[in-house]
C-alpha cells in the first residue's frame, strides 16, 4: 500500500477510535446517572483512544519512510559482489541508480549484466516485502493502540490529563521544529564543507585570490584542477552590498525621519504603505528590473560621460538591491525613532532647538543603537540576497573595488555551482556548501549581534 493510502487509513482508524472511545464513556456514564459522574468529558475519552490508535502508528510510519530506502539500498548493494561492485561513492551512486531504474522498469532489462538484473530483482522483492510489512505492522499497531485506549476508558480514568499531556508534548515538538531547522542547516552545511575542506585546504579557500571552480572531468584531462580562492567572491559581495547600503541607508533613514518627525498624519498614512510596497516585491522582479532596465541605463549613462560601465556592473545590482532594502531600513528606523520618548523631543524643543537639531542631536543619538542594528540586519540581508545578483551581476570572479565593473558574489556562485547536473560529491558542488557555510556564519553573527543590540535598546526605554 502506498504511504498516502496508509496515512488515510490511519486517520480513518483514528476517527473511528474517537467515536468508539466516546461511545464507551457514554455507555459507562449512563448507568451512573450522566456524564457528570465521569472524570473527564466524553470527547476526552474519544481523543485518548484516537491518540493511542494513530500516534504510535504515525511514528512508525515516519521512521519506516526514513529508513526504508537506505536499508534496502545497502542490502542490494551488498548483494552485488562481482565485477559490478562499486569501489567509491561516485560509482556506488551510479550503480544504485542503474539498479533502481532497472527495478522500476525505466531502463530496459535486455542486455544488462546478470548481476545487475539479480540485484534489481532483489530490490523489487525487498520493496514489495517492505510495503507489505509496513501495512501489516501499521494496521496491527493501530488496532492494538485502539483496543488499549478503548479498554482504559473508565469512570475514574483521567483522560483529560493524559490527552492534555500528550498535546503539550506535540506543541513542544512543533516549537522545536525551529531548532531542528537550525540544526539541519548547520549539519548539512558543515558536513559538506568538511568534505570540501578535505580536498581544498581551508586556508586556500578563505585567503585564496583566484576563483575558477572548473575541475577536470577526467583524471587525465589537461588544464585546470580548479582553484577555490574565495576572496574575489567576498570582495564582490562586499562591493555590491556597499553600493546597496549607499543607496538604502540615506534614503531609508531620511524617509523614516521625515515620516516620523515631519510628515502630517495623512502623508504618513499614504507614504508609509507606499514605501512598504517595495518590501513586498519579489526579488526576482528586482533582478529582472536590474538586468533589463537599470544595467543598460547605467551603461548608456556611463558611455555618455565617457566611462565604461559593464552591463553587469556591481552598480546596477547593488543599486537595485538598495532600493529593495529602503523599506527595510526605513521601517526599522521608524520603529526606533518613534520609540524615543516624546519627552526627549519636548525637552529639546523647549530649549529652542530647531526640529532638525532635535533630530540630529537628541533623537538620532538616542536611537543610534537601534539604527545601527537595523543597518546590520540590512547588511546581512544584502549579503544573502540572491536573485538580484544572479540576474544582474556577473558570473566571472573579478577581484576589483570598482563598482562599474562586473563582479560576482557568494550567492551567485552557490547558485551557479548547484544548478545544472553535477555529481553531488565533486569539489565543485561541495564548494557551494563551503560558501554557504561562510554566508550562514556571517549573517548569523550579524543577526545575533543586531538582535542583541535591539533587545538592549528596547530595555532602555521600557
Amino acid at each position: 500500500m502506498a504511504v498516502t493510502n496508509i496515512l488515510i487509513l490511519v486517520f480513518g482508524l483514528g476517527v473511528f477510535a474517537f467515536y468508539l472511545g466516546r461511545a464507551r464513556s457514554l455507555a459507562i456514564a449512563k448507568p451512573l446517572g450522566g456524564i457528570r459522574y465521569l472524570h473527564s468529558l466524553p470527547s476526552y475519552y474519544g481523543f485518548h483512544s484516537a491518540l493511542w490508535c494513530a500516534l504510535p502508528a504515525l511514528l512508525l510510519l515516519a521512521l519506516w519512510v526514513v529508513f526504508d530506502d537506505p536499508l534496502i539500498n545497502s542490502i542490494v548493494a551488498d548483494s552485488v559482489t562481482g565485477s559490478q561492485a562499486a569501489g567509491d561513492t561516485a560509482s556506488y551512486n551510479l550503480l544504485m541508480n542503474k539498479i533502481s531504474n532497472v527495478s522500476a522498469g525505466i531502463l530496459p532489462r535486455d542486455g544488462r549484466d546478470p548481476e545487475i538484473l539479480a540485484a534489481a530483482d532483489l530490490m523489487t522483492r525487498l520493496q514489495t516485502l517492505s510495503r507489505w510489512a509496513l501495512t501489516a505492522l501499521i494496521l496491527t499497531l493501530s488496532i492494538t493502540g485502539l483496543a488499549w485506549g478503548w479498554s482504559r476508558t473508565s469512570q475514574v480514568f483521567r483522560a483529560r490529563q493524559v490527552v492534555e499531556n500528550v498535546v503539550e508534548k506535540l506543541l513542544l515538538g512543533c516549537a522545536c521544529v525551529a531548532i531542528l531547522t537550525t540544526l539541519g542547516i548547520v549539519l548539512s552545511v558543515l558536513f559538506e564543507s568538511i568534505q570540501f575542506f578535505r580536498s581544498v585546504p581551508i586556508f586556500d579557500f578563505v585567503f585564496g585570490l583566484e576563483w575558477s571552480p572548473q575541475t577536470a572531468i577526467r583524471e587525465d584531462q589537461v588544464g585546470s584542477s580548479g582553484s577555490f580562492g574565495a576572496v574575489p567572491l567576498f570582495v564582490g559581495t562586499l562591493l555590491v552590498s556597499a553600493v546597496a547600503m549607499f543607496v538604502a541607508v540615506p534614503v531609508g533613514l531620511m524617509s523614516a525621519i521625515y515620516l516620523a518627525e515631519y510628515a502630517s498624519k495623512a502623508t504618513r498614512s499614504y507614504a508609509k504603505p507606499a514605501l512598504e510596497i517595495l518590501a513586498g516585491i519579489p526579488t526576482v522582479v528586482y533582478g529582472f528590473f536590474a538586468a533589463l532596465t537599470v544595467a543598460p541605463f547605467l551603461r548608456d549613462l556611463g558611455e555618455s560621460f565617457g566611462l565604461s560601465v559593464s552591463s553587469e556592473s556591481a552598480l546596477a545590482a547593488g543599486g537595485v538591491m538598495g532600493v529593495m532594502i529602503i523599506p527595510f531600513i526605513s521601517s526599522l528606523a521608524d520603529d526606533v525613532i518613534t520609540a524615543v520618548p516624546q519627552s526627549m523631543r519636548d525637552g529639546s524643543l523647549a530649549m529652542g532647538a530647531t526640529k532638525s537639531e532635535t533630530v540630529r542631536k537628541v533623537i538620532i543619538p538616542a536611537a543610534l543603537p537601534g539604527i545601527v542594528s537595523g543597518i546590520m540586519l540590512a547588511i546581512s540581508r544584502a549579503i544573502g540576497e540572491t536573485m538580484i545578483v544572479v540576474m544582474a551581476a556577473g558570473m566571472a570572479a573579478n577581484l576589483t573595488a570598482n563598482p562599474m565593473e562586473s563582479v560576482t558574489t557568494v550567492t551567485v556562485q552557490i547558485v551557479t555551482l548547484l544548478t545544472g547536473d553535477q555529481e553531488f560529491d565533486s569539489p565543485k558542488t561541495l564548494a557551494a556548501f563551503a560558501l554557504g557555510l561562510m554566508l550562514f556564519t556571517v549573517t548569523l553573527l550579524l543577526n545575533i549581534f543586531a538582535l542583541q543590540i535591539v533587545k538592549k535598546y528596547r530595555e532602555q526605554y521600557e
Partner: protein
Amino acid sequence: MNNSMTNLEKIRKSLSRRNRAEGLFRWAGRVAIFLGLMAVVVLFVDIIGKGHGAFRIAYIELDIDYDPEKIGIENLSDPQQLAGADWQALPKAALNKQFPGITSRGDKRSLYGLISNGAGYDLKDRLMANPLLLGDQERVWILTDDDIDTYYKSWLAGEPYAARLSDKQVEWIAELHEHGKIRLQFNANFFTRGDSREPEQAGIRGALVGSLFTLALTLIFSFPVGVAAAIYLEEFAPKNGWTDFIEVNINNLAAVPSIIFGLLGLAIFINFFHVPRSVPIVGGLVLTLMTLPTIIISSRAAIKSVPPSIREAALGMGASKYQMVLHHVLPLAMPGMLTGAIIGMAQALGESAPLLMIGMVAFIVDIPGGFSDPATVLPVQIFLWADSPERAFIEKTSAAIMVLLSFLIVMNASAVWLRKRLERRW
C-alpha cells in the same frame, strides 16, 4: 540683564543659518521619500510598459484546407497515423495560397517563418474536436511566430523593430495588414499553456499550477505547526533556557538568507531522504521551513494581543488551560494568525532562490498534475524567461511579473482587509 542681551543677539545672529539648515534637512527628507516613491512608480511603469503587450498576440487569418492527403491522414482515430501526420503542412499550404508565386527556398522559409511552428498542432486540436472538418475548408486565425509578433506590435506602435525579419516578411505583413488579415488577439495561450522554447507558445499555466501545489503544501505544513509552536511558546512554555533557545532560534531563522534554506533542502531532503528533485513536495517543505518563523512570530503577536482578562475569566470558570486556549484565546487570535499566514504565503509565493537549489528550475512543458510531478513556480519561471535570449520573452517575463504582482497585491490587500475587519482593539 546685560549678559542675557548679548545672548539674545547671539541667538538672533544664528537664526538664519539654523533655519537654513532646518529647511535643508526637511528637504532632504522630502527628497528621500520622493526617491523611494519614484522607485515604486518607475518599477511598476517599467514592468507594465514592457509587459502589457504580452496579453495580446498577433494572429494571421488563413484559409485552411483540411486535405487528408496533405496531412497524410485518413482515419483520425488511428494513433499511428496521428503520430506520423504532418500537421504543419496545413498552414504552410494556406500560406502558399495566400502568397502565390514564391519559389526560392529562402523565400519559402521566410514565408513559413510567419507562423508559429506550433500552428499545425493548434489546427490538429481543432480537427480532433470537430472531425467533420477533415476534407473541408475553414478560415482560421493562425498564431504568428514570436519575431513576427514582436515586429507587428512595434510597427503598430510606430517604431518598427525588423532586425530579425527578412525584407519579404516585412512586405507580407504590410500586405496582410492592409487586407485586415493580421491582427492582435487576446493571448489565451499565455494563461492556458505550460512553458515552451517558442515564446509565442509559452504560457504560465504550468508555473501557476506548480506555485499552487507548492503553496498549498507550504500552508498545510507551516500553518498548523507555526500556530502550535506559537501557542506553546506563549501559553505553556516555562521560562527557562530551553524556551529562550527556541526563541533565539526562531528570531535568527527569520533572518537567515533564503538561499541557505535551499542548501538545507538539497542536502537533507534530496540527498539524505531521497525526495525527488523538482517536485512541489520538496519545494513545499523548503518553503515551509522558510516561512515558519514568520508565521510563528505573527501568531505569537496575535496571541499576545488577547488580553489576560479573557484568560482569567475562562480559568476562573474552571476551564483547563487547553480549554481556555481552544475556546477563547485561539478564536480571538485567529484573524491575526491568518493575516500572518497570508503574509507568509505571499513571501513564499515570491521566493525563488531556494527553489533553484532543489531543481525547481528545470524546463518543464507539462502542466503538473500532482504534488510529485516535476514542476516549477511562477517566480522561477520569470527567472528562466528573463534568462532567455529571445526578445519576445522580455514581454512575456514582464507579463508574468504582472500576474505574480497581482497575486501578491491581492494577498496583501486581503491581509490588510482581514486585519482591519476582524482584528479587535482591546
